[in-house]
């Protein structure tokens, strides 16, 4: 073993850092390794804009938050997890406040909250519109004070080491030198974020390639609810940069090419001059994105070189509000679209944003593989169900990052050291990386071309609306792509910071994740939340009030099982918005 720790955390984003602090505080004697393929403060949590939900206002209640979450998730949420989540979210956000997060404040110095899509009450804490940025930097800076936390910055994890039915660590490449090392651990927490890059047009950063979803899958741990892919209704064309939901919460309006607030045609309420909670522009993301598709079909959108768009209108908010509440939106529009929302309409279109699904875990972040935990976007504890509500993800990172950290710490305190199988697996992995990828010269396929094909395929067949036929075809094409991937050769054989090697590894991870998405989507013959089948347009609680669990056999074939949804107090009902 080249390095070893009690707990190893894969990922230095919000979830990973929160977990690291939790381990350090649960048992200061444990050594923690945080491995991240980018410097932690570059993790994608940095991009989150709008805010983090937690009940603090006297007119609000935990039940309200739970109900909004469950109905927003189209009843696919596990309600015990949701109840724990809403109860612990406030204290997590307060803790962040103690660590220095500059939450926006009321004039009297108390935390301010804003409305958010799908939420019945104002409960979204925010740090202007750079919430994720402040949250991540606060966490990162706070972790610096724990000496037992050892960082492996710019190390790329390629494999989990598994033996005797439990996990023993990971194999990772140190990017700057190309050294391939085994990092042993009694417990491993996966916090490697989502996989938006499986699609061509996404708000997600370049690093969001579902690595740990594939790692878990390959190690035998199942993924859950992978068919639920969230499209955010307002992304900038071309770049896919997100215009946060906060823009609508502050009063922004969505209009089509005729200047008409088209959401009123889709059972989302009646237009009022100012934002109404759970109505119109403050409806949930799945419904808004679906409405866009219908507008395109009706020919009421504007065509641009980067596809059809509608417009987000903030002009009536005025310069002062925009500067105070949405400075980053203005900055992004001016920088990347060369328009000023104070005077111009912002062109927007739906864009892939978030994965509701992920590594199947219980309420403490434990996966089905002993010693392996997961938290954050990579995990699926099932609080997001079929559609995540905006501003629930950041508190999720914190609540379940902490829970996973505590559980892993407890497990690691009792677990024994790694067995002899580890060495062999590490050598095996080194051999694979070097001979099948890095130094291989005979191949005909190119990573970037394959990636493009996969992304376009996913958008066409597993987008906002899907059908059985296209999904079945996509499954076949993905298998071909996986075969063709074996025939790639890298043009770059250097060990030093070889980003083509990482791109290839990421592509192989993404192919696995894409297959999981398509396989689950194909089998779920209903429409629920973000999963809309045109051939099965209705929700089917008889057959599908259940999570899909997908396993991958060593041979590479997939198997899907169903797991009942935990219902505690909110039986399935109709999702009602704007009335």
């Amino acid at each position, binding site marked *: 073993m080249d390095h070893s720790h009690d707990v190893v955390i894969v990922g230095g984003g919000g979830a990973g850092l929160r977990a690291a602090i939790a381990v350090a505080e649960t048992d200061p004697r444990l050594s923690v390794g945080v491995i991240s393929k980018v410097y932690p403060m570059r993790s*994608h949590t940095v*991009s989150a804009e709008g805010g983090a939900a937690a009940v603090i206002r006297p007119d609000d209640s935990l*039940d309200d938050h739970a109900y909004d979450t469950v109905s927003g998730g189209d009843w696919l949420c596990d309600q015990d997890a949701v109840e724990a989540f809403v109860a612990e979210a406030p204290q997590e956000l*307060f803790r962040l406040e103690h660590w*220095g997060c500059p939450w926006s404040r009321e004039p009297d110095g108390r935390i301010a909250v804003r409305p958010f899509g799908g939420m019945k009450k104002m409960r979204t804490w925010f740090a202007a519109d750079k919430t994720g940025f402040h949250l991540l930097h606060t966490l990162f*800076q706070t972790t610096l004070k724990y000496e037992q936390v050892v960082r492996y910055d710019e190390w790329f994890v390629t494999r989990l080491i598994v033996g005797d039915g439990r996990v023993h660590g990971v194999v990772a490449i140190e990017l700057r030198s190309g050294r391939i090392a085994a990092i042993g651990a009694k417990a491993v927490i996966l916090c490697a974020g989502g996989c938006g890059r499986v699609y061509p047009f996404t708000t997600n*950063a370049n690093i969001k390639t579902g690595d740990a979803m594939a790692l878990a899958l390959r190690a035998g741990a199942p993924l859950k609810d992978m068919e639920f892919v969230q499209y955010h209704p307002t992304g900038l064309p071309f770049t896919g940069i997100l215009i946060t939901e906060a823009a609508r919460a502050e009063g922004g309006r969505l209009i089509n090419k005729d200047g008409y607030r088209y959401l009123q045609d889709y059972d989302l309420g009646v237009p009022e001059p100012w934002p109404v909670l759970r109505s119109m522009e403050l409806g949930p993301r799945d419904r808004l994105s679906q409405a866009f598709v219908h507008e395109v079909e009706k020919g009421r959108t504007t065509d641009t070189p980067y596809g059809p768009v509608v417009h987000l209108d903030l002009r009536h908010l005025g310069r002062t509000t925009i500067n105070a509440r949405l400075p980053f939106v203005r900055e992004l529009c001016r920088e990347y679209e060369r328009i000023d929302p104070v005077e111009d309409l912002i062109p927007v279109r739906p864009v892939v944003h978030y994965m509701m699904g992920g590594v199947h875990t219980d309420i403490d972040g434990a996966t089905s593989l002993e010693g392996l935990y997961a938290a954050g976007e990579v995990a699926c504890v099932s609080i997001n169900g079929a559609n995540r509500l905006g501003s629930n993800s950041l508190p999720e990172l914190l609540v379940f990052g902490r829970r996973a950290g505590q559980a892993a710490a407890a497990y690691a305190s009792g677990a024994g050291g790694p067995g002899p199988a580890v060495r062999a697996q590490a050598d095996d992995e080194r051999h694979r990386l070097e001979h099948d990828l890095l130094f291989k010269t005979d191949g005909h396929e190119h990573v970037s071309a394959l990636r493009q094909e996969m992304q376009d395929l996913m958008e066409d067949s597993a987008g906002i609306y899907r059908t059985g036929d296209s999904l079945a075809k996509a499954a076949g094409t993905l298998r071909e792509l996986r075969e063709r991937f074996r025939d790639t050769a890298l*043009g770059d054989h250097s*060990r030093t*910071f070889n980003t083509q090697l990482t791109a290839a590894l990421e592509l192989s991870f993404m192919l696995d994740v894409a297959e999981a998405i398509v396989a689950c989507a194909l089998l779920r013959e209903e429409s629920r939340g973000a999963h809309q089948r045109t051939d099965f347009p209705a929700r089917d609680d008889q057959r599908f009030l259940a999570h899909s669990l997908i396993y991958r056999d060593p041979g590479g074939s997939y198997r899907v099982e169903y797991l009942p949804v935990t219902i505690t107090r909110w039986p399935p009902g109709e999702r009602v918005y704007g009335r």
Partner: protein
Amino acid sequence: MPDHITLRVTRYRPEEDTEPGIQEYEVPLREEWAVLDGLNHVKDHLDATLSYRWSCRMGICGSCGMTVNGEPKLSCAAFLADYAPGPVRVEPLANFPVIRDLVVEIGDFMSKLAKVKPWIIEEPQAGRGDEAGGDREVGRGGLVGGDTDEHLQTPAEMDEYHQFSMCINCMLCYAACPVYGLDPQFIGPAAIALAQRYNLDSRDHGAAERLDVLSQHDGIWGCTFVGECTRACPKDVDPAGAIQRYKLTAATESLKAFLLPRGAK
């Protein structure tokens, strides 16, 4: 507008080269394309061996700093059209060792960040009980509003440090600062601005501890107020201002300690 533009990219392959060389690439020139999009075009279609860092491509993760036509820039926020008709020189960030091509070594910067103790330091005695991550009981449907131990902080108090909390650690300021280039021991603009960010936070009590680190020669005193750091900063952090303000505080603190050897806080 011509429809192509030339990128003159600095290449350095440590296995073969002892010095960096230059390679030219012709990339499409589009209104929306940033320098980073040009590099991605190169990577995907022309030359897969080019290495550089990027992630968010929305100017917030801080990984894509490069020297573009001699100026330190975020390559995802520097638009090709602004450099037309070209050619555009793309070099690694100045003042850092180069690992490969456009990738620089920033371990030094990372250790400096940690040195200034960038976390809230509480008042010595006033430790709070629940830091260990214990679950505070929150009743079902109950309200958390009244009895939380949140620190109040008025918008005006937040304003004191907010600007200095906007740093994305992109290190453009280090690349712009000649003092850092001449003397890598210098702790540098962003780290000092970060120290100020915490010093000025009404919740923090660690100013004295940080002063010990920063009042050393390689701390604030190395800075001669060149001011380039502030000019280069893409997030209006104004590190130069932070440093000068810090010098004033440090000097008055020293003076106080000198004049009132005991009583000084």
